[in-house]
């Protein structure tokens, strides 16, 4: 259990000629919550997406629970995993997107159940049971049968969180989960995430909500221009920033 849950080693990511991530190293243990903050374009979403190989790193390696993620090591060289292998690994990481991306042709329950049913081969009955439990957890039981178009943004995002929870993942990734929401709906989603955090779930959270990060995270990473400029517990990074870039960023956000 002293193995770190997540290890990011020497992560570089280029999009063509554009260098977005320029050498990221990060470690996180089980049960911990890491928040990633930074100005737009600094690469925080890209970094998150590299963790579950939604973006393939240009350089560097990811380790989940001690195991290499997304690649196989053959002798001294690394080879990207096949679609099937990658899919099996991704099943261990739950991801929540800024745009929710619920599937419109399925109702809430099926959106959550279809993963366990098709990916983990659960029976329909078991998958439905799991789905209902997860939707209950995010306080969406009353909307089991509703289709996404009839749900508000906050409700859709909560269903999306339930969908990720149904994977019973080792790690949850949140990519700016409230940035696309109307202000009055942000609270309900943040509450759910906080409840999950208090349960002891491991999560990496990219967010603009600095106050929320202060409450929920035990480790904060400030990313600027593709490098980690400062990191540490919220009491240091957010309340006692050292680096001038971080200071001006926090001032801009109004924190």
């Amino acid at each position, binding site marked *: 259990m002293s193995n770190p849950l997540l290890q990011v080693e020497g992560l570089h990511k280029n999009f063509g000629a554009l260098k977005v991530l320029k050498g990221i190293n990060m470690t996180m243990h089980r049960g911990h919550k890491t928040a990633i903050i930074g100005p737009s374009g600094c690469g925080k979403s890209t970094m998150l997406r590299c963790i*579950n190989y*939604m973006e393939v790193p240009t350089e560097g390696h990811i380790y989940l629970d001690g195991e290499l993620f997304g690649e196989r090591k053959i002798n001294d060289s690394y080879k990207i995993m096949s*679609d*099937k292998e990658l*899919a*099996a690994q*991704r*099943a*261990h*990481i*739950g*991801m929540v*997107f*800024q*745009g*929710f*991306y*619920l*599937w*419109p*042709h399925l109702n809430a329950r099926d959106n959550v159940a*279809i*993963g366990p049913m*098709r*990916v*983990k081969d659960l029976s329909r009955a078991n998958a439905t049971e799991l789905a209902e439990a997860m939707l209950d957890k995010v306080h969406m039981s009353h909307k089991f049968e509703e*289709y*996404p*178009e009839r749900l508000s943004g906050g409700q*859709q995002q909560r269903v*999306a969180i339930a*969908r*990720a929870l149904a*994977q019973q993942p080792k790690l949850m990734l949140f990519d700016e989960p409230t940035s*696309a929401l109307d202000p009055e709906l942000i609270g309900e989603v943040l509450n759910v995430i906080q409840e999950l955090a208090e349960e002891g779930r491991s999560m990496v959270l990219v967010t603009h909500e600095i106050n929320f990060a202060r409450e929920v995270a035990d480790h904060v990473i400030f990313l600027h221009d593709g490098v980690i400029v400062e990191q540490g517990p919220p009491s240091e990074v957010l309340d006692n920033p050292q680096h001038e870039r971080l200071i001006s960023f926090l001032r801009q956000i109004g924190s």
Partner: protein
Amino acid sequence: MIDNIRDFLQVYVENWSNWGPQIYAAVGVTIQLTVASFSMAIVLGLLLALGKMSRFPLLRAFCVAYVEVARGIPVLAILFLLYFGLVPLGIVFDAFTASVIGLGLSAAGYIAEVLRAGIQAIHKGQREAALAVGMTPMMTFRYIILPQAFRIILPPLLNMLIILLKDTSICSLISTEELMLRAKDLAMMSFLPMHLFLLAGVIYFLLAWPLSIATRHLEKVMQRGRRQTFGI
């Protein structure tokens, strides 16, 4: 005036025992042509659509070129090429086969575009969410993309069916034994072109019109149906 119409219709009554069975058989061929070429076009169209969206540049280029060419050349030109133009090379098709292949090749170009557009209409984010949940690309296609794309492509596909039905008439020009040819032959033999071509027209109309109505109805249902949530 009424007498003229009555005389006109009388001709049909008189000749029906002669024309009836022949027309009936010819209509059968027309329907067979339509169904066969449609099936071929869908299969080929699907392959082309997938090819156009594939990772391999050579395959992509070929499919793009095929679609452009198939949409830029008249069906008749393709039919002539297949029926007459390949003979010196040793490839001889009978009229029916040449017609099915020609119509199929031509329609596949259009259908490929319809399928591609339908598939790409599904927002990229939904694909990402599926991968994040642990689905393979194939599972994503089967459970997320296909069910939604299906509803989008149905009306244009039905439209293509109607077009193929009408285009079977062109096959008469390479002596395929379908409705148009039968009508022309009978018209020549009986010196009653007006009656026979009108009859052919009416039959085509009776075959195509229900499909048209169904298509329009389907389009309306699609509009009314569920809006897509795109996320951001």
